[in-house]
C-alpha cells in the first residue's frame, strides 16, 4: 500500500495507458508544455513526446471532436477538457456524436475515448468556473460518467475507463487533487456501476459522489455526537448507476439523504431519490431527502460562495431532521 494523492493516482493511470498502448495519446489545452492546468500531465510531453502529448488551440468542440474521430478510427485518445464548464462548448460533439454514433450506425462504430475533465466549485472563480455538470451527461444514453472521490478509486476507475470501448466522461474534482489515500500496490480495476460503502452504519444512508463523499464522511462523524450511526455510500459512477448498493443500504437503515454539489433543483440526487421511492419505499421511515447546492449562479465573494456548497454541517442537519 502506498499513500498517493488523487493527482498522482491519475498520473499513474495515464502513464500506464501511455506505456501499454502506442495508440493512446493525450490531447487538450495546455496538457503539454504547460503541464496541465492542475499539473496532472506535468512532464509528460518530455517523457512521451509531442506526437502523443498534444497541446491544442482553445477550441473545445474542435479538439474533442478530433479525439472522437480518432477513437472512431480505432485509436485510444484521452482528451482533457480543462474544466467541465468548458465542456459545454464541446457538448455537440459529446452528446451528438460520441454518445450516438454507435446507435445510429446500427452498431458499426465504437467510440473508445476517455474525456477527462474537472468539476466543482469552492475556488472563488464565480459563476462560469464553478459548476458541477456531470449529472447532465449522466442523462445521455451512450455515455459513461465516472466520478471518483479518492485516489484509489481514481486509479481503478481510470484503468476501467481506458479499457472501455465506449465514450467515458471521467470527472475529477478540483479540490481533491491534493487529497491522499491508500492505493494498493497490486494491479486492480474498479468496474463501472459498483458503488462503495465508504462507511458502514445502521441508522441512515448518506449517498454522495465526488467531493461530497469526504464531506459526507465528515458529516457522519458529526452525527456520532447525536448518537446517529450513518452509512455513507460513494456512487463512484453516475452512469452506469449501481442502484443495488444504495437500495440495500436503505433497506437496512430506513432513511436516506442524497448529497451533491450541483444545484439542488433538477439534480442527479433527484434521480437517486426516485430510485429509492420505486425500490425501497416500504423500508423508509421518512422521506428520502437531498442536500444540493444553492440554486444560484455561483457568486465570487467568499462568504456568499460558501453558502452555495453543501457542508458537513448542512448534511448533518438534514440527517437530524429525519430523527
Amino acid at each position, binding site marked *: 500500500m502506498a499513500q498517493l494523492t488523487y493527482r498522482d493516482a491519475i498520473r499513474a493511470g495515464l502513464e500506464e495507458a501511455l506505456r501499454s498502448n502506442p*495508440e493512446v*495519446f493525450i490531447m487538450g489545452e495546455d496538457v503539454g508544455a504547460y503541464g496541465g492546468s492542475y499539473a496532472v500531465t506535468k512532464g509528460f510531453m518530455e517523457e512521451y513526446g509531442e*506526437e502523443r502529448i498534444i497541446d*491544442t*488551440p482553445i*477550441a473545445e*468542440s*474542435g*479538439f*474533442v*471532436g*478530433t*479525439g*472522437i*474521430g*480518432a*477513437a*472512431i*478510427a*480505432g*485509436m485510444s485518445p484521452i482528451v482533457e477538457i480543462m474544466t467541465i464548464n468548458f465542456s459545454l462548448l464541446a457538448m*455537440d*460533439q459529446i452528446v*451528438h*456524436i460520441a454518445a450516438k*454514433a*454507435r*446507435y*445510429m*450506425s*446500427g*452498431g*458499426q*462504430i*465504437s*467510440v*473508445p475515448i476517455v474525456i477527462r475533465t474537472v468539476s466543482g466549485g469552492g475556488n472563488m472563480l464565480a459563476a462560469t468556473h464553478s459548476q458541477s455538470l456531470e449529472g447532465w451527461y449522466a442523462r445521455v*444514453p*451512450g455515455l*459513461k460518467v465516472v466520478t471518483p472521490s479518492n485516489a484509489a478509486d481514481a486509479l481503478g476507475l481510470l484503468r476501467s475507463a481506458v479499457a472501455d*470501448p*465506449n465514450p467515458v466522461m471521467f470527472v475529477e474534482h478540483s479540490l481533491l487533487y491534493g487529497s491522499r489515500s491508500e492505493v494498493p500496490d497490486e494491479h486492480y480495476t474498479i468496474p463501472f456501476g459498483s458503488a462503495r460503502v465508504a462507511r458502514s452504519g445502521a441508522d441512515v444512508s448518506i449517498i454522495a459522489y465526488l467531493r461530497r463523499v469526504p464531506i459526507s464522511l465528515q458529516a457522519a462523524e458529526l452525527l456520532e455526537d447525536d448518537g446517529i450511526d450513518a452509512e455513507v455510500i460513494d456512487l463512484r459512477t453516475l452512469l452506469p448507476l449501481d442502484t443495488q448498493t444504495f437500495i440495500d443500504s436503505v433497506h437496512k437503515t430506513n432513511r436516506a439523504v442524497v448529497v451533491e454539489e450541483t444545484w439542488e433543483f433538477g439534480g442527479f440526487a433527484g434521480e437517486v431519490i426516485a430510485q429509492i421511492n420505486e425500490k425501497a419505499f416500504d423500508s423508509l421511515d421518512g422521506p428520502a431527502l437531498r442536500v444540493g447546492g444553492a440554486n444560484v449562479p455561483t457568486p465570487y465573494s467568499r462568504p456568499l460562495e460558501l453558502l452555495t456548497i453543501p457542508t458537513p454541517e448542512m448534511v448533518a442537519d438534514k440527517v437530524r431532521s429525519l430523527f
Partner: protein
Amino acid sequence: MSTSIDSTLPRSELLTMLRTMKLIRRFEERSAEHYGRGNIGGFLHLYIGEEAVAVGVISPLRDDDKIVTHYRDHGHALARGMDTAACMAELFGKSTGVSGGKGGSMHFFDVEKGFMGGHAIVGGQLPLAVGLAFANRYRGEDSLVVCFLGDGAVNEGEFHESMNLASLWNLPVLFLLENNGFGMGTRVERASAQPVIHRLADRHNVRSHREENGQDVFAVREAALDAIEYIRDGNGPYFLEVMTYRFRGHSMADPIEYRQQHEVEPWLELDPIKLLSDRLLANDLTTADEINAIDEDVENEVNEAIQFALESPFPKPDELYSDIYA
C-alpha cells in the same frame, strides 16, 4: 460549358459515372414517392441536381479513403457504392437498412466502405473528419478523409475550429463544400459576410479553390483530383468549393417560397445528368439505345431496392436497447 470529354477515362468508367448519377436521381425520385405514401418518415433531404458533385469527388477516391458527410447523404452513399437496397431499407426504417433502421435518411453509415456517417447537426461532422485524418497521420497512412459540408455549415464555429486544426497539424482532409446557394431557405448572401466562401480558407492557411462548374462532373472530378493529389503529397488539408444547385426544396416539407421560378429554370437547364449524357452522345461515346438500357437497369435496381425495403422486417422491439454501448 465545355463539350469535350476527359479523355483519360475509359468509356466504361464514363458510363459508370453516368449510371451512378442516374441511380442517385431515380433512388431519390422514388424515395419522394414513398415518402408521399407514408413508407418513409421524418426528414427526407433530396440531393437532386447535385449529383455531379458526389460522383465527381467520390469516383477518384481509393477504397481506404474515408468519407464523412452531412444529412443530405444519399448521393454520397450511392456514389461510394453502398448497397442500394440497404440504403432504401434504411429510409423505410427496416432492420436490413445500412444503419439497422436506427439512423434513417440523415444517418447512413457503412464502415466497410469507409462511409463514416451522415451527420445531422450542421457543422458537427467537421471535427470528426479532422480526427479520422489525425489517426491516418499518426499511423503514417497516406489515405485521406473527404468531409462534405454545405454552405450553411461555414458560419458555425466548428467549421473554423476544424479548418484551423487540420491546417495546424497538416492533416489529410479534403473539405468539400457543396454550395447550393441556400442554408435551408436562407441565401448565402444573407448568411455569410464573405459570400465567396472558399476565401475563408485563407484565414486558416488552407489551400482552396472554387469550382464554378459544379454541374459538370468532369470539372468537379478534375478539381477533386487536383485537391487529392495536393493532399496525398503531404501538403495538408484542401478546401474545395463546388457551385451547384438544389433542384428540390430543403426537405420534403419545404414549400420553396423563398426563390422564384425564373431563378430556378436556368439551373434546371444545367441538369448534370443531361449535360453528361449529351456530351457522351455528342462525342460518340454512347448511343441512345445504350442510355435507354442504363435507364432500364437503374429502374430495375431501384425497383428491387423498394421491394427489398417493403419486404424487410422492422427492427424487433428488443433491438431498441442494442447498440447503445459496445
